[in-house]
């Protein structure tokens, strides 16, 4: 059986090394010329909790999980039941588990999947220094057709510091797994691919976002640790130091947002990253940046809400707060990358826009996308750089920081520029920045702060629009991957539909939206929230066709291509 894509879950308790093994599989797959996508799920324990690496390998780029896993390898069953719902299987799936560990949890059994026993612990024990996760990895490799060579390369790279013996032990364990799996029932095997070193990237969404920020020009970051944004920050801290910037770990989110406002006021493009609870704490000062027209970028990596919610799991439920969470009328940018790859582009674009428009850009990523690792085609260079409009020194005798201009953007002086001193203010102000409660000043400033956003030409980047026909799928963020895949399958079934994945959530683009939907008579709205936040937002701001269905579900289960396809099918 040769397929274009195979989905594999590797589960076990915390110490079992499933994440390590998953990462090695991904690395080997990239060396074998395949593309890949991996997310992870873990329990609440810091150490020793259950975990799963959920992977999809493919001969084409992949940006989402499939409807179910072809292969589940469980090193043990400890607490795997807790997230069985995250590991959908079908009757065609194969479950590989260690006979020492007993019965699979009932939910796994109920799937009707075929199952085989692989004595991972026993085999590992027979090899000095051998570990069950390597046996599992070997079995997976054999089943999906991953050659030994790239695996060995990865072993050598990862275990270099541990020495030859460790490498050999792992290799032996791998081979034991491979040998054992020889006669297992088949799962999809990927065809061998052309390997062209230097044409792929292996990167997580959080890393891509961090890189996008630095590419865009960010050189100051202040932040407070929070799952699942921390690893973006951990990537950025040393990276910034290398390119001449810095990251400050602040005492809380109130400090981090205000530190970046201060740094940006000083002329340095600045960013913070957080998740829901932190974003909540930042909204007052986001309003300050909007009112004082100080550009900043706020990356929000969404997790399950409300409140502390489910810190380690994904959800698209911070859309409302990102759009509407500020008091007063506070127009700003909200952007959302729609894949691991797009985290790079969208974050870079966000920096560019925030700086060009002297406002706040909130970027909504999520745990699934941010912590997903993907093997992707090497991304293109993008021309978007931070470029703030500054006053022309000589001309400005009577500098007006908040001058009401046609574009709404007013040239911004930077401390150190002589003779252009002004006071930035979060109080309503007149054109020079002096506090004012006059109706006329308030209206003029509200108008200009809105106008600079609505008058700007965002080009085609506001959304990814593809396909044709009378049916549209409208989605955003990490729900785009499965929606796009559903579209492909729908088209493969001979039907036509369009996909509109909105990248620029605010300001809204009613004309572009109308054009994208021209001729559409029915639309399916897809998102991962309980209350249908995205659907309500669309209704509020766009004209939707009469016939609209909303597929909205809370996390942590991702939307799957089959869910989307099912909704489409139920129409026709």
């Amino acid at each position, binding site marked *: 059986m040769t397929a274009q894509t195979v989905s594999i879950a590797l589960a076990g308790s915390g110490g079992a090394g499933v994440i390590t093994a998953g990462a090695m599989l991904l690395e080997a797959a990239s060396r074998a010329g395949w593309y890949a996508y991996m997310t992870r799920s873990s329990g609440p324990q810091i150490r020793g909790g259950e975990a799963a690496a959920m992977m999809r390998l493919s001969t084409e780029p992949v940006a989402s999980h499939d409807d179910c896993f072809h292969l589940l390898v469980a090193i043990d069953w400890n607490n795997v039941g807790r997230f069985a719902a995250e590991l959908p299987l079908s009757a065609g799936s194969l479950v590989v588990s260690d006979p020492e560990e007993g019965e699979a949890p009932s939910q796994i059994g109920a799937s009707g999947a075929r199952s085989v026993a692989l004595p991972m612990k026993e085999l590992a024990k027979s090899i000095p220094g051998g570990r069950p996760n390597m046996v599992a990895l070997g079995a997976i490799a054999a089943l999906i057709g991953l050659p030994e060579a790239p695996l060995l390369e990865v072993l050598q790279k990862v275990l270099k510091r541990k020495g030859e013996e460790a490498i050999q032990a792992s290799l032996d364990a791998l081979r034991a797994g491979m040998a054992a799996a020889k006669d297992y029932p088949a799962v999809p095997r990927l065809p061998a691919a052309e390997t062209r070193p230097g044409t*792929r*990237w292996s990167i997580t969404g959080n890393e891509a976002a961090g890189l996008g920020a630095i590419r865009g020009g960010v*050189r*100051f970051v202040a932040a407070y640790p929070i799952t699942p944004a921390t690893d973006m920050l951990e990537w950025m801290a040393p990276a910034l130091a290398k*390119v001449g*910037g810095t990251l*400050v770990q602040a*005492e809380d989110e*109130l400090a981090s947002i205000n530190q970046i406002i201060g740094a940006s006021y000083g002329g340095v493009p600045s960013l913070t990253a957080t998740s829901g609870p932190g974003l909540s704490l930042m909204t007052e000062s986001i309003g*300050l940046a909007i009112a004082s027209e100080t550009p900043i970028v706020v990356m929000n990596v969404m997790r399950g809400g409300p409140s502390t919610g489910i810190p380690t799991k994904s959800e698209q439920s911070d859309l409302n707060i990102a759009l509407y969470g500020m008091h007063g009328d506070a127009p700003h940018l909200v952007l959302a990358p729609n894949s691991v790859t797009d985290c790079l582009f969208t974050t870079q674009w966000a920096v560019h826009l925030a700086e060009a428009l002297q406002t706040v850009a909130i970027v909504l990523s999520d745990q699934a996308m941010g912590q997903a690792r993907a093997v992707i085609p090497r991304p293109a260079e993008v021309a978007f750089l931070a470029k703030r409009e500054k006053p022309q020194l000589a001309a400005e005798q009577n500098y007006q920081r908040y001058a009401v201009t046609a574009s709404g953007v007013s040239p911004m002086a930077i401390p150190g520029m002589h003779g252009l001193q002004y006071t930035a203010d979060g109080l309503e102000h007149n054109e020079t920045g002096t506090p004012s409660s006059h109706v006329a000043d308030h209206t003029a400033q509200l108008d200009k702060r809105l106008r600079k956003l609505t008058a700007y030409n965002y080009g085609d980047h506001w959304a990814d629009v593809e396909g044709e026909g009378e049916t549209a799928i409208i989605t955003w963020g990490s729900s785009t991957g499965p929606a796009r895949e559903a579209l492909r399958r729908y088209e493969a079934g001979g039907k036509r539909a369009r996909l509109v994945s909105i990248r620029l959530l605010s300001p809204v683009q009613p004309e572009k939206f109308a054009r994208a939907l021209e001729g559409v008579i029915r639309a399916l709205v897809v998102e991962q929230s309980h209350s249908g936040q995205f659907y309500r937002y669309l209704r509020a701001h766009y004209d939707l066709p009469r016939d609209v269905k909303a597929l909205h579900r809370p996390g942590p289960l991702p939307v799957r291509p089959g869910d989307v396809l099912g909704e489409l099918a139920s129409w026709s």
Partner: protein
Amino acid sequence: MDTQTQAARYSAKDYKSAIKPIWCPGCGDFSVLSALTKALAELQLPPGRVAVVSGIGCSSRIPAYTSMYGFHGVHGRALPTAIGLKVARPDLTVLVTGGDGDGLSIGGNHFLHACRRNVDVTYIIMDNQVYGMTKGQASPTTAPDWEGSKLTPEGTGVNPFQPLAIGLAAGANFVARCFTGDPNNVAEIIVEAIRHPGFSLVQVLSPCITFRPEQKDWKRLVRTAPVEFTTDAARAARRLMTDDGFNVGKVLYKGSREPFRPDLGGSGATVADLERQFLR
């Protein structure tokens, strides 16, 4: 970004803007403003290279009344704003001005952490033991039995903070107290604070004529602190814990901790260098 070429001498009034303060006639904050401008004239810092950052309150209105770069942010967050600015732009002189409510009530956490982080900014806290701007409520430095606010009609029943003692315990590197009744002394202390590397904390007793008219008596209550500054934090702490808050006119503590100043020079790496790690 500095484009100043001339070597003009600045006078105090070169640091003042044309905007008329909204303060009540007789408010202590007028003296702080003029002491500040005197101090800057003494230091001859070009106004375009100085930034004054504040939060919200009567006292926090100062930035716009100066001719320097100003940032009038939200209530309680002046210190992190200033710290971000100074870390990103170490070439600037950064001052923070604000009230006892702004700095010690809502802003208390940033106050603690600013003392600890020791970024080279000067923090001038204008203490009138009241929230002036919101028309007279108790602040963290208000005496427990002050019954002047309808919000706490029986008094707060809580002991006031000694901001300098807390600042010291949290790691402040320079600690001084002065009184608006002697603006020249306030100016001198501000000069010294700006010159001192690291975080400098200056508490200025600045009467609120409107909601604490009894503070007119401060000129009789204050005395020049009977001690010289120490570099021994433990000794300073002991002094401050028993001090009644009216010893003014002096720097009380000077430390020598290195200011926090991350290197912004980079390692010479380019963005392309960063990208290599992802390549497969």
